[in-house]
């Protein structure tokens, strides 16, 4: 194939669809989508479940501070996912691993600080009550994860599995942070398995979504290539 024929073939294809496109928003702006979603989750938590029983005793900052901090953490995690929508921006593994470890440490540490300011609550709650936290955090994170995955699908990330993982964990951190306004159990024995566990499971689901997307991307690329060659 000559260089000229390469250009002619591409030019024909390009001229078929030369509609103007709007560039993607910069990741720091796009990640702000988390704010309305956080507000939506907050509304659901307040209207459906209500504040935790010891909210008045806790005071403003110990109650709202960790929740706000977790929304900020989720913003950073989702920002790291959205940065990778642009193909030339791939995050190295030490950076994303450090980010996720720090995010989990902040989440567990924040809950522990709340525990210190309230005194140790008894841990003799039924398993069903604890599992409810897991289920609600997981459920509340779904809208954020879907929106972030949709935003990611508009780009061309190199590592769909990684961005899926970040989207899942980002969504999990938002809902966990806000759901903490309702859950009165701040002991690590509860927080680590049922809250952090939910975030990790959502991350794993995001990773699976990324895996599926990666396969679909490959199939669509192979199909597109065959169609192009046939023309």
């Amino acid at each position, binding site marked *: 194939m000559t260089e000229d024929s*390469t250009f002619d073939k*591409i*030019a024909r294809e390009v001229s078929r669809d*030369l509609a103007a496109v709007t560039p993607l928003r910069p990741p720091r702006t796009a990640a702000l989508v988390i704010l309305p979603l956080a507000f939506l989750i907050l509304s659901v938590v307040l209207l459906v479940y209500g504040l935790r029983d010891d909210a008045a005793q806790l005071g403003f900052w110990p109650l709202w501070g960790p929740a706000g901090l977790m929304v900020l953490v989720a913003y950073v995690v989702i920002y790291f996912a959205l940065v990778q929508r642009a193909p*030339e921006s*791939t995050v*190295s593994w030490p950076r994303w691993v450090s980010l996720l470890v720090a995010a989990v440490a902040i989440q567990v540490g924040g809950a522990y600080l709340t525990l210190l300011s309230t005194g140790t609550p008894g841990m003799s709650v039924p398993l069903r009550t604890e599992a409810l936290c897991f289920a609600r955090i997981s459920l509340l994170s779904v809208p954020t994860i879907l929106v972030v995955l949709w935003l990611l699908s508009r780009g*061309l990330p*190199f590592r769909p599995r990684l961005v899926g993982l970040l989207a899942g964990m980002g969504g999990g951190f938002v809902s966990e942070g806000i759901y903490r306004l309702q859950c009165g159990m701040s002991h690590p024995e509860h927080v680590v398995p049922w809250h952090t566990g939910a975030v990790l499971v959502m991350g794993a689901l995001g990773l699976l979504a990324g895996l599926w997307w990666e396969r679909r991307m490959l199939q669509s*690329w192979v199909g597109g290539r065959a169609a192009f060659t046939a023309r």
Partner: protein
Amino acid sequence: MVAYQGGDFSAFEELYRRLAPKLRGYLSALTWRASATEDLLQEAFLQMHRSRRTYLPGRPVTPWAFAVARHVYLMHRRDIVRRSKHEDAFGDGVPDLPVPPAVESLATREAVLLALRELAQDGREALLLHHVWGFSFGEIGSLLGIREVTARVRTHRAISTLRKLLAAENPRGNGYDGR
């Protein structure tokens, strides 16, 4: 690139004119197959067209275009793996690659290209991106998903290996001082 995003065909032509030679060299370096390069170049430009919205105005265009080309190459490689086609790593001779200026005085062009072929692919890629296409180590890190310092180490190791290979090939070296 911004004009191309706005639907200007002449901007695409200009982009092709500027980028095609560089991308052809890059894809040659990745595939080491002249026959695959032209197909992948087509695919890279089509993918760039489909993904033109992912270019963020104000950023340099070349790293973006190289990243799209790399994406196409990885798809091609995954497709081969998926179909279990065991192609020879180096199929049809030496591709028409630019020679890194850092070693061009050490041997003939053919000898340099043959020595490049002996390098591990990750080192060769980093070396060519830095020494031939002028990418900074930060840009290479971002493109390959590695740390800047790793990109620097890979490049330096590759250039050092390349110099050793050329010295072994031509001990008197055309001006090579053995360092």
